[in-house]
């Protein structure tokens, strides 16, 4: 088990490093001279441009720049923002908690709403609840975050005044953005849970359980649901990526702090070190979440635990 986790950790590290390198290459290949952009093409002599270039190491060939970037990264040095000279790492660490909290709340909303509606929908197959749940699921998947966000904002903040429209202090500011993002994930999970529940309910062992005289409640929640959760969990691992990209829009709509908004600003001003830093952390969160999901399989499904024990080095 520990061996399996170590292997996974190692491969996760490779994924994070690989994605950082990919971003470096993409940013390198993008048109536009970062130094000229920094200087706004103005008030600068060719000497000034050259000196700034060499100061930033941008006069070096690609492989030297890449090597330097990589070595610095391994040492935990993310560089400084080209816009205002802020250190990238502290800047990201300052804004990361807000994004993590939002992601956590959204994942919780996705899980609770998704599993609840999915189960209800499967139990009351083709009933009103089923149709309503599927409608909400479809709504969550198909509506872009900024649209859902603005609808929720108009209704619950501006019309009804229940929750603040902006800010990042306190749980109240988390409700609307959490719902906005959570509904996206919930949409996927509702459909997933409903389908697997229906599939599981058709399995012969459910018939056996019922024949043994187990209560319907125990059949549903003790056996059918538990067996339907694995695909839902996998889904969570995948939707975290979706949620993280959704934070870019959601943080802007609800004027929240977070790395999504920093990323958007950095891309617009071609602040490459900041973009790279944020991508690094985003990749890290994504990989870690999927690792946790993988590990949690073994808690839910004894078969996975056993096979990992056998196969583990």
């Amino acid at each position, binding site marked *: 088990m520990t061996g399996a986790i170590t292997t996974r950790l190692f491969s996760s590290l490779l994924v994070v490093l690989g994605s950082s390198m990919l971003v470096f290459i993409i940013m390198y290949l993008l*048109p*536009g*001279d970062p130094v*000229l*952009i920094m*200087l*706004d*093409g*103005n*008030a*600068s002599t060719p000497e000034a441009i050259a000196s700034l270039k060499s100061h930033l190491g941008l006069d070096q060939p690609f492989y030297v720049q890449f090597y330097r970037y990589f070595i610095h990264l391994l040492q935990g040095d993310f560089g400084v923002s080209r*816009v*205002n*000279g802020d250190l990238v790492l502290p*800047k990201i660490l*300052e*804004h990361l908690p807000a994004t993590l909290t939002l992601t956590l709340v959204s994942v919780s909303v996705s899980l609770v709403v998704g599993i609840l509606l999915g189960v209800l929908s499967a139990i009351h197959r*083709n*009933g*009103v609840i089923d*149709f*309503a749940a599927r*409608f909400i699921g479809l709504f969550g998947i198909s509506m872009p975050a900024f649209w859902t966000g*603005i*609808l929720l*904002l*108009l*209704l619950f*903040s*501006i*019309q009804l*005044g229940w929750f*603040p*429209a*902006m*800010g*990042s202090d306190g749980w109240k500011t988390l409700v609307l953005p959490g719902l906005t993002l959570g509904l996206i994930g919930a949409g996927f999970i509702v459909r997933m849970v409903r389908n697997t529940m229906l599939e599981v309910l058709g399995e012969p062992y459910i018939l056996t359980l019922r024949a043994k005289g187990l209560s319907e409640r125990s059949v549903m929640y003790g056996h059918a649901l538990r067996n339907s959760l694995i695909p839902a969990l996998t889904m969570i691992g995948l939707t975290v990526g979706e949620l993280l990209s959704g934070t870019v829009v959601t*943080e*802007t*709509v*609800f*004027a*929240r*702090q*977070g790395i999504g*908004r*920093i990323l958007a*600003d950095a891309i*617009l*001003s*071609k602040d490459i070190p900041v973009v790279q830093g944020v991508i690094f952390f985003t990749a890290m969160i994504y990989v870690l979440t999927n690792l946790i999901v993988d590990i949690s399989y073994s808690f839910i499904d004894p078969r996975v635990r056993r096979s990992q024990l056998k196969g583990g080095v």
Partner: protein
Amino acid sequence: MNKRRASNWMKFVLVSAAFVLVLTGCASSKGAGDTGTPKAAAEGSGSSSSSGGELSYALATSPDSLDPGKSGYAVSHRVFRNIYDSLVSELPDGTFKPWLAESWTKSADGKSYTFKLRHNVKFHDGTPFNAAAVKATLDHTQTLTGQARTLIGPFKSAEVISEDTIKVNLTEPFEPLLSGLSSAFLGISSPKALQQYGEQYGKHPVGTGPFKFVSWSENDQIVLEKNAEYNWGPPIADNKGASHLDKLTFKIVPEEATRIGSVQSGQVLAAETVPPQNILTLKNDPNIKLDTAITNGTPYTLYFNTSNAPWSDLKLRDAVRSAVDVDTIVKTLYLGTYQRAWSVLTPGILGYDASLENSVKADAAKANQLLDELGWTKGADGIREKDGKKLTLRYLESSPNREKRNDIAAIVQQQLKQVGVDVKLTITKDTVTPLTQGEYDLVGNSQVKADPDILRNLFRSDRVYGKGGYNYVKLNDPGIDKLLNQGYQETDPEKRKAAYAQIQQYVIKNALALPIYVFPYTVAHSSSVEGLKFDLLGYPQFYDVTIRK
């Protein structure tokens, strides 16, 4: 079973219909401008008298730095104007009054100014305000490339004559100096804080202004509080003592629906940059007041690159100008809330030539006739050709998200297509390359400045792009250079005005530029907010603001 399923379907349809109704219901009542009852006078504003309380003000973008020497953004100025005072204050009529300087004299050659400074003024960190502080601030601007450095022009040195006397030396006469010094970009910083925070000063600003800096949480808010000792306000303010407000909080809210909705629901007391469609709605809202101020400088203008053939030809440029219907553009896009521009200066700036108003008009027939005369004939695709070359115009736009500038580009493209000109549109934030290489025929730009000397940066032959200037037109006319120099060196305001009038007429006569609109700075605020004023540049002034109970 079938029957049951059918009734379930009915229920589902009803439920979802109700859901949709709830959503659209709230949307339509929004559209009608009936926002219900905004929860009166919002959070934190629980003042019982006309004094005290907190003003929350939603900004559309975030300042980059609160170091006035470093920043070039209007939004930074809106925030740090409250933290810093200036040596002089510019009145709406373009004259100057004492502020931190009690009086000043200009040397006979116009190359040095001596300021007598006010006594008993203290910075927020307790440092006394004196000549050394002014020198430290002015020297600081020279180490950076911000707006401040441009505003102070040919600055040579600052000499401390005595504790309360400072002499500013220039390399040549520079008439816009006082105007520059009146801006918060040249607001006076605490020398102690400049020293203490170094590179990080932009996050720890210390001035002598009516508000002290408290905190800045990035992308969230900037909090300022009242400077209780303040009694050296500018002459344009009614207030003579400390600010009426206890607290001034700038929230950074990029999404316009959120920003405007928050004012309507009372979650903030004021919000800037109101989109035109909301202006009309908010005008009918009894709880909201709408303020508009003209931002002075150059209006949003499309500049021709006259160094590129065939656009070096005046007649061809004139044809394009005749084909572009600016009235329609401005009316369609801004619903009557923006003013059309007629010159390359805004009305309200010294030297604005009002005689240019209505001097050009859209006339597609004339455009066609001019193009025919020049020998450009329409090809099979409707685009004109001459000697096997198509008539194309490369249009460069760098701020598409501002004030629907991308829509202007699209309409111009359509209008020019009608007369057979093919517009190749490039919308990009990265304009450095095309501008440096001259790969454009038309480019849009606007600038904020209180002095007409701004034109020097746009039209003097040496002010080329990449060397500190914005001569998009690539104009190289010794006569205009002379007038532009006269404009900033001449001491007689009447002569300055005359020089600038000549320059503006020249630009329009030669169809070097197509002025489009004058940008109004708009603020929507709760009707409980009183005394909000705007300075010459359209920047809001919070010192006189009170919040009614």
